[in-house]
Structure formats: C-alpha cells, structure tokens
C-alpha cells in the first residue's frame, strides 16, 4: 500500500476519551477525495475572474461549469470504483462535481480496504466518533487517483478556537 497523508498528525485531542474498539460489523461512512482534472486551469481562471484589471473580472461560472472543469477522469473513476467493488463496497454516493465519493461499509471492510487502520470509538460529552488510531494506506493501483480519505484520522476542527471565544477576566490577566 501507499500512504496518502503520511504527515497527518495522528493523535486524540485531550477532550476526546477513548471508548473502545469498533466492532467489526459496525457501519461507517468514509469520504474519498478523487483526484480532479484541470486544477492549474481552475487556478488561472480564478485569478482572472477575481482581478479587477482583467477583462474576465466577475465572469463567474456555475457549479455545473465548474464540475465539467474539475470532474475526475474516467480512468480515475474506474480505478476507484474497481477498488471499492473489489472489497464488496457498493453503497456509495457522489456529488455534482463527482470529485468526492462517500461510501458505507463495515469497520472490518474499512480496515481491509485501508491497511494499517484500526478503528476506535471516542467520546466527548454526548458526541461519539470513530477514528483510526494509526495511519492508513491505500492500494498502489488507486494511490494516484485519490487525494485523501476522510473520516479516518482527523478529529473535528475548531475546539481550540471555541474554547477561546469566551474571554473572561482570566484571559485578560494572562495578557
């Protein structure tokens, strides 16, 4: 296999408590970010429509037009689907731009699909999450067709910011 996010920090934020290993038959949904086409062109077009000195300024595109620009190649879609179906994964849905795929599978299948993973449940108040305690890899056949797999490593962002939204006298003293 090949790692897609080797530099992703694998850690459990201190406010999330470990609540045991996920049972093999429990269902989960993972998000696959498929490699897009024409990213350089997308970047150039964005510069043109955002630059007031450009004749293209303000000539925005619809979502459908953006979709036709960045939609993954047929080869990418085929490679990813073949890989997923090879693991018996059929319950997937995509978005209009076709560059994300969300699939439901059991924890057992997920751990086979993504070698290296071991899914655990974590709790914070009433919230629960399933995340892998270790890095994931994907089969070499699909590594060039995926940017990352979502729902495996990252905990929800922002708890740090929220904690600091309230600035009481304590914060002022610290300052």
């Amino acid at each position, binding site marked *: 296999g090949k790692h*897609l*996010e*080797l*530099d*992703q*920090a694998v*850690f459990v934020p201190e406010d999330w408590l470990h609540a045991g290993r996920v049972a093999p038959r429990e*269902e*989960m*949904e*993972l*998000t696959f*970010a498929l490699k*897009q086409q024409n*990213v350089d062109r*997308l970047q150039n*077009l*964005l510069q043109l*429509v*955002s*630059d*007031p000195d450009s004749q293209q300024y*303000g000539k*925005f*595109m*619809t*979502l*459908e037009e*953006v979709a036709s620009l960045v939609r993954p190649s047929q080869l990418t879609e085929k490679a990813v689907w073949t890989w997923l179906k090879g693991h018996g994964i059929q319950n997937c849905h995509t*978005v*209009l*731009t076709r*560059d*994300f795929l*969300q699939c439901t599978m059991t924890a057992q299948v997920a751990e086979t699909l993504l070698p290296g993973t071991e899914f655990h*449940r974590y709790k914070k*108040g009433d*919230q629960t*999450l*399933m*995340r892998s305690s270790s890095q994931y890899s994907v089969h070499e056949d699909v590594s060039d067709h995926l*940017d*990352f797999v*979502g*729902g*495996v490593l*990252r905990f*929800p*962002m*922002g*708890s*740090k*910011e*929220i904690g*600091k*939204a*309230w*600035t009481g006298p304590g*914060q002022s003293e610290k*300052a």
Partner: protein
Amino acid sequence: FHLGVTPSTIRARYNLTASDTGHAANNSQAVAQFLEQYYHPADLAEFMSIFARGFNHMTEVERVVGTQEEGKAGLEASLDVEYIMSTGANISTWVFTNPGRHETQEPFLQWMLLLSNMSAVPWVHTISYGDDEDSLSTAYMNRINVEFMKAGLRGISMLFASGDSGAGCLHLAKENVFRPSFPASSPYVTTVGGTTFKNPFKVTYEVTHYISGGGFSNVFAMPDYQVDAVSAYLKGAQSLPPQSYFNHSGRAYPDMAALSDNYWVVTNLVPIPWISGTSASTPVVGGILSLINDQRFLKGLPSLGFLNPRLYKLKGTGLFDVTEECHLGCLDEKVEGQGFCAASSWDPVTGWGTPNYPALLAALIQ
C-alpha cells in the same frame, strides 16, 4: 459611552447608517457551524429586540441546511448568526449546521461536500473555526484549497477567522516557532483578524486585539496579490520577530479585521457580555461584504467573489488602518510573548484594517 460592543456600536464605528441594509432580491449570506453548535431562533429574536433597534433587519434565519438538533444553543453559533444579521441587516441568511451524521464524518469536510453539491448557495460564507497547520496533512490542505478555488470561481466569498492565539507557538525541542492556522492560511480565502477600541467604553479608533491570529503559512507560498504589501511590511517594520520563527515567503494573513472584543451575545435567552475572539469579527465583516454585494446587485454587477486580489489593489482605501499594538507570540526568552505588531498599511495582525463602509462601498462598487 457604551458597556460593550452591540450592533449599534459596530454600525456607528463602521459608518453604517440606518438605511444601509439589504434591498436586493437575490442576495444571501451564510454562517457554517460544526461540532454540535446550534443557534436558537428565540435567542436571535431576543437579541434583535434588545440590541438591534434603529435599523431594518430580519429576526429569523431564512434557511437551515442540515439538522438543528435539540439541546442548548452554542455560544459560537449564537454569535455568528446574531452579528452577520446585524451588519448584513435585512439580508437573507442561511445557517449550515454540520454535526456529522455518521461517526466517521468530518464536519468541515461535510460542509465542503455540500457546497460541491448545491447549485445555489449564498454569496458570502463566514466560518469561525480552524486547526493548526502542523496538525494537518499537506494533501488534505491542498485539496481543501482547491475546494476554495471552486467556490471563488462561482463568485462566492469565503471568510475565515484568523484565530485567537496571535502568532501561535509550536514548542520544539531546540527552538520555538510561530504556529499558523488553516484554513486562515489558505491563499484563496479572506481571513479576518481582530481589533479592540482604544478606549473600551467609547467608540474610538481601533488598536490590535492581542489575540488576533496572524502570521505566515508554512505550507502555502505567498500569492502574487500580496507580495508588494507584505514586502513593504517586512522592510518597514520597526521590530520583527527573529526570522527563524516564521516563513517570510509564505501566505501572510489576515487580510482585514474588525472589532473582536467585548461583544454582547444572547444565548439560551440570556444576554452575555465580554464575548471576544475573531469568531466575532468574521461575521461582522461578512455582513458588510454582503451589504456591498447588495449594492452591486442593484446596479446589475456580479458578486464580489474571491475578494483578495481586489482588496490588495485598493491598498487600504475604504479601510481604517490599525497601526498600534502587537499580538501574542511564543512565551520564551527570544520574543517574550510577542508576535507581530501592527503598522501603517498591511500588517500580519490586522491586515489592511477595518471597514469604513461608505468608503469601502465606493471603492468596490465600480
């Protein structure tokens, strides 16, 4: 004299008159919430009845995308909704709420997917969340960056809070370094920092709020649109932190700022004072950009879209320059708790400054 920041205070400071409210039919703005953060319609109604007299405004959110579950209102959610609807008054407002339907979903990613699947979404989105750059993979950040490009190409403005830890600090074994935050550090979003009144009890000029997030990305190169502004700061700054603390060739943020200290918020029907953070300044700027969009739509012009290339060409026109005080940095012998300092023109603490609505409108309506 005032006892904290309310919609009236903000509208007075940024020169919004009673008639500066939304009128265009096709205008809209949005806030996104994650992590089980819900707003309560009753809080919004109470907030508006107490604090939003003297200008035309809405008292209800137009549309909630996602599931608003039962439970206590979140402070963050209340703050975002109440203030975007106070500056972007009388403009249709959406709330994206992303608690994560499945235990393996990433709420932020889920919101990005929603945007990629909805043909019609609001023109301005404000988001008050972020992660340390060093905690995220480059592959993930690069891909999210492309998602921001997709939004910009559709004419959507993405505003992110710059963070509440100043320059931040990553404690390393040998030497500390500043710690940038993502998505604030993305070159394809407009990042909003924070200020405070010079005199906290009067509508005076603004100075840096010490918590205001800002600095230089370690992942994204400096985009062309800001090279001149940042170079001028680095050359002209009276004192800079040691170069080893930041990547001077990275994307520098924030791009602009607004008041971020001593806000009043109604949450769970209780008015609460002393709420602070760039979570507050971001929806304020979002609402003001929505007002400018409104005037553009009335003239038959397109939305502002990705603002930064145009914002940097204004070179501060339409903004109050914030030139005093510094934000937080590493608490060590070398920088002694100080990050960067504000200066005239652009700086990595308050960007180009805070909005002077009539002047900014005049500059962006052409």
